[in-house]
């Protein structure tokens, strides 16, 4: 009777999106997984034989494990700093009056409009041995410090790039907050700090946790910033993959590392998400 309400309708509707997802994400991933099992020979290149040697090599080599560990460490540190800076920033933003709020929101989101590469170059100019930071230090009578091509430089730039991804979810969470709950806490005898800690923070923690998820995921797979500010020696997972592909031309090994990074990221984020969801279900429904 009812035409066009057939069982196939939902499939037609998700079809275009599904195709895009299949073609651009699933297919390349499957190919990468297959590639990671191929045998590679330095003289003849990729062979049509399969092996687990690349995985064994990566897991048994301190060089690779060290880079993975650094990636994890720097991504976690970036996430932590973003949370510590971003949450108060979002709170202050939500407390601003309108012309200023729009202006500062733009200031926070603005950097997203500039290419990451450009921003990384900007930082390399600031942090270089004759950059603005060192010039200032010297002018103040301090010794110059080596910042460029250190983990510090990578973290500074990553925090700068990732901050909007923390501020925006926290800000959204704050928007949903009844502005009177803080006043209610004060009226019950809580100081400003206690009201923030006991009443505001728990309600935006969900925003902070989802912000952390985004920041961690993007930081762990960041390429341009560690590439430009870490230099040739200080590698992170994504730059390592690039080197394997483009310099060593060992595509199967690069694919192996990429898959491992993906799997590790996936495991960490899923576990984290689980924590968030249980919390959310308990507290906010």
């Amino acid at each position, binding site marked *: 009777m009812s035409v066009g309400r057939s069982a196939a309708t939902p499939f037609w509707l998700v079809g275009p999106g599904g195709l895009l997802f299949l073609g651009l994400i699933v297919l390349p991933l499957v190919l990468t997984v297959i590639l990671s099992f191929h045998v590679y020979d330095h003289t003849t290149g990729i062979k049509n034989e399969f092996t687990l040697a690349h995985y064994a090599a990566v897991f048994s080599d301190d060089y690779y494990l060290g880079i993975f560990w650094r990636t994890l460490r720097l991504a976690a540190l970036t996430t932590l700093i973003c949370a510590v800076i971003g949450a108060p920033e979002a709170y202050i933003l939500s407390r601003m009056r309108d012309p200023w709020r729009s202006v500062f929101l733009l200031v926070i989101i603005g950097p997203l409009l500039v290419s990451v590469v450009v921003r990384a170059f900007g930082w390399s100019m600031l942090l270089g041995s004759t950059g603005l930071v060192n010039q200032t230090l010297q002018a103040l009578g301090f010794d110059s410090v080596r910042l460029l091509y250190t983990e510090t430089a990578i973290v500074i730039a990553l925090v700068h790039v990732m901050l909007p991804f923390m501020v925006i979810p926290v800000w959204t969470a704050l928007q949903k907050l009844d502005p009177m709950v803080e006043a209610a806490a004060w*009226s019950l*005898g809580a100081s400003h700090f206690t009201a923030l800690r006991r009443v505001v923070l728990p309600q935006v923690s969900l925003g902070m946790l989802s912000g952390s998820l985004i920041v961690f995921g993007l930081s762990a797979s960041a390429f341009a910033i560690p590439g430009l500010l870490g230099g040739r020696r200080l590698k992170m997972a994504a730059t390592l993959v690039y080197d394997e592909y483009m310099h060593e031309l060992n595509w199967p090994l690069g694919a192996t590392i990429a898959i491992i990074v993906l799997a590790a990221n996936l495991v960490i984020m899923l576990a984290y998400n689980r924590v968030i969801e249980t919390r959310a279900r308990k507290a906010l429904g």
Partner: protein
Amino acid sequence: MSFLTLEKLSKIYGDFAAARDIDLSVAKGEFVSLLGPSGCGKTTTLQMIAGLVEPTTGTITLDGRDITRQTPNKRGLGIVFQSYALFPHMTVAQNVAFGLEMRKVAKAERDERVATMLGLVHLGGFAERYPRQLSGGQRQRVAIARALVIQPPVLLLDEPLSNLDAKLREEMQFELRRIQQRVGTTTIMVTHDQAEALSISDRVVVMEQGRMTQVDAPYRLYENPATPFISSFVGKMNRLDGAWRKGAMEIAGIALPAETSGLSEGQAIALSIRPEKIALKPAGQGRLDGTIANRFFLGGSWLFTVETAAGAILVSAPNDGEEPAREGTKVALDWALASQRIEPLAQGAAA
């Protein structure tokens, strides 16, 4: 005698006075309502008492102490917000216990007081629920319990019933009064609903454009409104404009007797009378003849609109079980002289 005193309290934003020269003294245990349309300054006044808005001038004295500049967390007043402002991530019991926790009350005593308070608001079985799992009326009672458990000297209610549906609102009015009388807390309630203010307050403060215009017991406010605004805002009121001629009031050529004296010949005057003070009589047997234009059945009473030579007049008659006169019936309106009020209109305002 006076427990909470507001003296010359004003809040000025730029050149706009949200509240001007509020003088009010509230006795211990009294239930006072601030009544007025939105933007009249009633909420600003409440927030100044709560400490959430800093007064521009004036003082607030509580039990002999000047609390004008004290921060809200030191005042210790109980506040029920319009949105209830419950902590969504805490259970009902945790919400209620929050104020006691801030006062460092020991766990055992805290639990006991929370349980007693939840019993008082009939929420004994809901202690472990989260606010989102409660209905509007239940949330409202949690908010009241949370404000009262700290045994505040003054309870402030900001439009506490406005988010509830009509039936629940009526129930909660009685509930609120019952709890307030049981606990004996001095209470100040802000509302724009005149029925709410009249039914549960000891005294009502009417506010207009940032000023207090009348402070009176509900029935006196209803019977003797100080300004035309109050007479139209509180309850329904018929107002007829006319002139004083030969010792009577003349409206549209009809002379209506009046007991008022001291008015000069030809002076513009207004007659006001409540709809329930007017009786419907057969045509020709009253003071004013007219035709029923509309009738509304309100359950307990009928509300008629009667077209007369002096204009449309509202008449309210109790429902005595019989069907009253229909639309189009010719009737006469009659009322006791004592129930009409005649005021001279200000010069210029009559034009």
